């Protein structure tokens, strides 16, 4: 099912995972302690970064990196909790309720959805609001395909999404760290953008549960918390949704949450980030406007004050 377009590589051209692992081990071994002071006091430019279509040419993180360091508060607030507890989640059967301003509202079985969309590989940069980042080879389909399946009414302006609420299986939901269920949202043009995908896999394998199986959003030019996991509900609406983190702390987290090195989080700088996987002596690298996707998405925000709409 791998569609070949200027935005994706057929899977046969992708580097196998074992290969990535070897390369990373070599790099880590060579880097060592000496890199600590040699790196100086500036954030490093990332020499590898280039976007080939929609795929970055940077070295992807290992499956271990991607599946052992997660923010998924439904399973606990520490980075290790999701990998430790997400196995309790039942992901089959799974259906997504699509309602609101759509032509064909209803409960969509995930299996049926997958028969009607094109799964491709997308190697995306992923930047967390906490100033760390990864490069992730997702498998997924463009969200616009799913929205078109349901049919968008002309009055729809926003897309609101909800994560599963099932405290029996998601132990973090038994605490009140956030108002459950987790809610995220996009403006309709952001949701329809070809960069915006629904991920169903990683490295050509099933999506690990701690990464938001069986279906999660990925919006690579926004901070990671926008990329809502384990989605069960999609509502098209004409009102801007209030996303969970905005509801918790509107001063620190906005609706747009575009990656922006010039607008700092009130508690920390967003000018630089640490790429996960570099070990104890990894330097910070510079954060790029819209996480490096400026040429693709800047015109969505033409004329907007991004300091106000953070």
């Amino acid at each position, binding site marked *: 099912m791998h569609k070949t377009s200027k935005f994706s590589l057929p899977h046969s051209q992708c580097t196998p995972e074992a290969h990535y692992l070897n390369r990373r081990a070599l790099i880590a071994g060579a880097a060592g302690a000496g890199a*600590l002071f040699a790196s100086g006091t500036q*954030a490093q430019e990332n020499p590898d970064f280039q976007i080939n279509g929609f795929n970055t040419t940077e070295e992807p993180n290992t499956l271990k990196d991607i599946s052992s360091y997660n923010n998924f508060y439904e399973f606990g*607030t520490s980075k290790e909790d999701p990998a430790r507890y997400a196995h309790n989640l039942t992901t089959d059967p799974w259906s997504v309720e699509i309602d609101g301003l759509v032509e064909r509202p209803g409960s969509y079985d995930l299996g049926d959805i997958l028969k009607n969309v094109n799964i491709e590989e997308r190697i995306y940069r992923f930047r967390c609001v906490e100033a*760390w980042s990864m490069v992730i080879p997702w498998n997924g389909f463009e969200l616009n395909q799913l929205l078109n399946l349901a049919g968008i009414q002309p009055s729809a302006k926003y897309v609101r999404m909800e994560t599963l609420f099932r405290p029996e299986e998601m132990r973090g939901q038994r605490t009140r760290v956030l108002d459950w269920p987790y809610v995220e949202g996009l403006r309709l043009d952001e949701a329809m953008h070809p960069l915006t995908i629904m991920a169903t896999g990683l490295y050509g394998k099933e999506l690990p549960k701690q990464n938001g199986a069986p279906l999660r959003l990925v919006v690579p030019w926004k901070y990671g918390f926008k990329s809502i996991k384990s989605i069960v509900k999609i509502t098209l609406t004409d009102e801007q949704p209030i996303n969970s983190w905005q509801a918790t*702390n509107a001063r620190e987290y906005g609706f747009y949450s575009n990656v922006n090195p010039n607008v700092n989080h009130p508690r920390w700088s967003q000018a630089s980030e*640490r790429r996960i996987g570099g*070990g104890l002596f990894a330097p910070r690298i510079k954060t790029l406007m819209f996480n490096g996707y400026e040429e693709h998405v800047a015109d969505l925000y033409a004329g907007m004050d991004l300091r106000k709409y953070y």
Partner: protein
Amino acid sequence: MINLCNRGLRKIPTWVLYVIAPVAPIWLFYLAVTGALGVEPIQALEHKIGELGLQVLIFTLAITPMRKYIGLNLLKFRRALGLIGFFYVFLHLLVWLLLDVRILDQIIDDIFKRPFITIGMISFVLMIPLAITSNNLSIRKLGPKWRKLHKLTYLATFLGGVHYVMVVKGWQIEPMIYTGVILALLLTRISTKKLRSK
């Protein structure tokens, strides 16, 4: 039972604590280098050492109430524990400076513009004179002023707890528990004073 503990504790020389103290950070550093602290070892090391520092400082704060309310006497270890707590906090700061941020402009920016870092720095700076005067000579020289000066421990530890509450995303339980325990330990001081004045 408590007497037995006190008698046993009296036999332990304080230098033992100074010898044991570096083991924890060395072990954590080893774990971080070998990948046992996960795929983001810098922050893991930073947080673990910071937490350790706070734990030791809280324990130091608990020594007086423990003697008062349950008769357990650890007074002879208080100086060593205070210094070890300071040492861990200093290492936490070093990890932040040398491994985490490393970018001079950003460090200066962070200290002045980010309240949780400002508060952490104030807490550290308050502890410097306390560490310097943690010796018999200073006690003799400063006389009653020494006791007054060392009341700063209360503020420094409390600010350490606040720093922890502020660093996490959202309202999380663990840092609140730490700060709650610190406040409870500080309250034991206020209530004894009030009792005395009656």
